[in-house]
């Protein structure tokens, strides 16, 4: 009953069936216990969920060891944890190692600097996420923040001790690789996607096609290896590009190829009439692209774009294999100490939670953004 009047005559409104309305009891009866089979499934699954939840609470909270004493030689006395193994989590390992996991081998007394960097990154993400700040000035905010992060991490000025890049580690590395990675890969991807659809410049189109197909055809791991091992062989003697930068470039190139395909899908989905209308009004190619084509094409592909972003945020952990100390590597090294060796589970749970927090925030944000953009259009 979507209409109340039909050619002026009033049609009585039929009330919505009760099942669709609020009451949880009615909902449960209609959806969980509507036949003996569904009742059986509901009971079995319910039992499993409860069992699992009880197990998690017992292991993670009730029987967990939160801290352990330190021996005279400075190492941790983990016997309490070892006794609880299997029945309770050893959160003491996190307590003992969290600074190492977060900051890697960055000098201990200087770790306030990467801590500030993490805060700066998060602030930058939040500011960039707010549509109110979507203006030209945002580029300057990015430039300023990233410069500040570079200065803080390296130091050597303003009385800060110089910290070489190979001592950096942990979460800042993950954030640097993914933020710089996507910040450079995204505009590159837009250009590649546009180039691949170019009808006027066949040479540009060829280059873009070859680039995408080549990069997509090899695993990221092999690109990282090439960046870390082979690339320096091509450089003249004495020139040494920092290992992190090489990995960063590999990630940018890899991400851009994938993002370009996502963006191309958006360009293709846009009705041809949009570009034609812009042409007919006399807009130049770049005016048309910036004001008509991209805003609509990118809006269409927000879900797969965010999907790719999330994938790359996690893929930065592959730098582990070329010895860059990102969050995952730091976690892995943290448990190489004999006393803590048997508590990998706890470490990986915490690492997973950190990754999850960032990825979930991205996913949640993108859904909100889609909703906002749709609402703005139909207000």
């Amino acid at each position: 009953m979507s209409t109340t009047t039909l050619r002026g005559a009033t049609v009585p409104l039929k009330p919505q069936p009760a099942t669709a309305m609020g009451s949880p009891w009615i909902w449960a009866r209609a959806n969980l216990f509507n036949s003996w089979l569904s009742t059986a499934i509901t009971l079995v699954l319910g039992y499993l969920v409860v069992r699992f939840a009880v197990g998690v609470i017992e292991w993670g909270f009730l029987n967990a060891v939160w801290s352990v004493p330190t021996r005279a030689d400075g190492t941790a006395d983990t016997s309490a944890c070892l006794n609880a193994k299997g029945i309770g989590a050893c959160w003491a390992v996190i307590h003992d190692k969290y600074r190492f996991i977060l900051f890697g081998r960055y000098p201990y007394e200087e770790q306030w600097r990467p801590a500030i960097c993490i805060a700066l990154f998060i602030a930058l993400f939040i500011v960039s996420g707010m549509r109110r700040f979507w203006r030209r000035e945002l580029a300057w905010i990015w430039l300023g923040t990233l410069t500040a992060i570079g200065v803080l991490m390296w130091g050597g000025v303003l009385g800060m001790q110089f910290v070489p890049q190979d001592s950096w580690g942990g979460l800042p590395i993950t954030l640097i690789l993914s933020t710089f990675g996507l910040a450079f890969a995204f505009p590159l991807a837009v250009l590649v996607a546009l180039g691949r659809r170019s009808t006027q410049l066949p040479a540009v189109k060829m280059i873009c096609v070859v680039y995408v197909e080549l990069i997509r055809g090899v695993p990221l791991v092999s690109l990282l290896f090439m960046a870390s091992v082979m690339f320096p062989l091509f450089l003249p003697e004495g020139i040494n590009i920092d290992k992190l930068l090489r990995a960063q470039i590999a990630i940018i190139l890899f991400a851009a190829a994938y993002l370009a395909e996502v963006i191309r899908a958006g360009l293709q989905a846009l009705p041809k009439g949009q570009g034609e209308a812009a042409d007919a009004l006399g807009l130049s190619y770049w005016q048309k692209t910036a004001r008509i084509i991209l805003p609509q094409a990118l809006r269409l592909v927000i879900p797969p774009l965010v999907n790719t972003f999330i994938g790359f945020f996690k893929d930065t952990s592959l730098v582990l294999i070329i010895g860059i100390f990102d969050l995952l590597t730091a976690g892995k090294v943290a448990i190489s100490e004999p006393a803590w060796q048997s508590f990998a589970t706890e470490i990986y749970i915490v690492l997973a939670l950190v990754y999850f927090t960032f990825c979930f925030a991205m996913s949640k944000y993108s859904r909100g953004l889609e909703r906002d953009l749709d609402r703005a259009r139909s207000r």
Partner: protein
Amino acid sequence: MSLTQTTSRNVRVAPPGDVPAIVLDKVNKWYGLMHVLRDVSLTVAQREKVVVCGPSGSGKSTMIRCINRLETHQQGSIVVDGTELTDDTRALDTVRREVGMVFQSFNLFPHLTILENCTLAPIWVRKMPKADAEELAMSYLSRVKIPEQAKKYPGQLSGGQQQRVAIARALCMKPKIMLFDEPTSALDPEMIKEVLDTMIGLAEDGMTMVCVTHEMGFARQVADRVVFMDRGEIVESGPPNELFENPKTDRLQLFLSQILRGH
């Protein structure tokens, strides 16, 4: 609509020395092996109104789209207001500024408000200050009788309203020539009149118009000349009454009987 009213209308040909608005000379175009425009020659005088009709697939859209180079022709020449259309992008810019186009499917920009749709080109192509562009847009939106919708988005408007916005958007560039490609074919019957009325008003103001349409009433009322196309050729052309009352070719006769049956 009375016969006398339309027959008494004179073809207002441009004063001598004035260049014609549009000259197509032996224009040929192929899509692959398909020959879609065959030796199309057509001269449109300044302030003349030409209606193009013909069966579907006869090349009407292709011809009209060649005039502002949304399609490129392969042989012959097209001169718009003294500027020949070639690969030269400067010539293209000049022509596109002078030629406005209205599409069958409106093609409004759905992510911009009605006002922004209208001010976009004046601001970015004509480099007009934003306030002036908005004032201009509001004056044209008033002319097409929808100033109160300026802050809405295209998706919130009816088809007829959207098409009137599309006309206003094109007019905001102050074109000398307006091209219409079946502007009312995508509309519900009750909305056709509001769009045609807008176009009639435009014609009365002396705009040069080339209009692909099957609205015979509109053609009789407004057109100085009707051009009938079939299979990529201009088969017949002449004043509307002459053409509709005394078709010389079988093809036009067949076409007219078909649309009259359809209406």
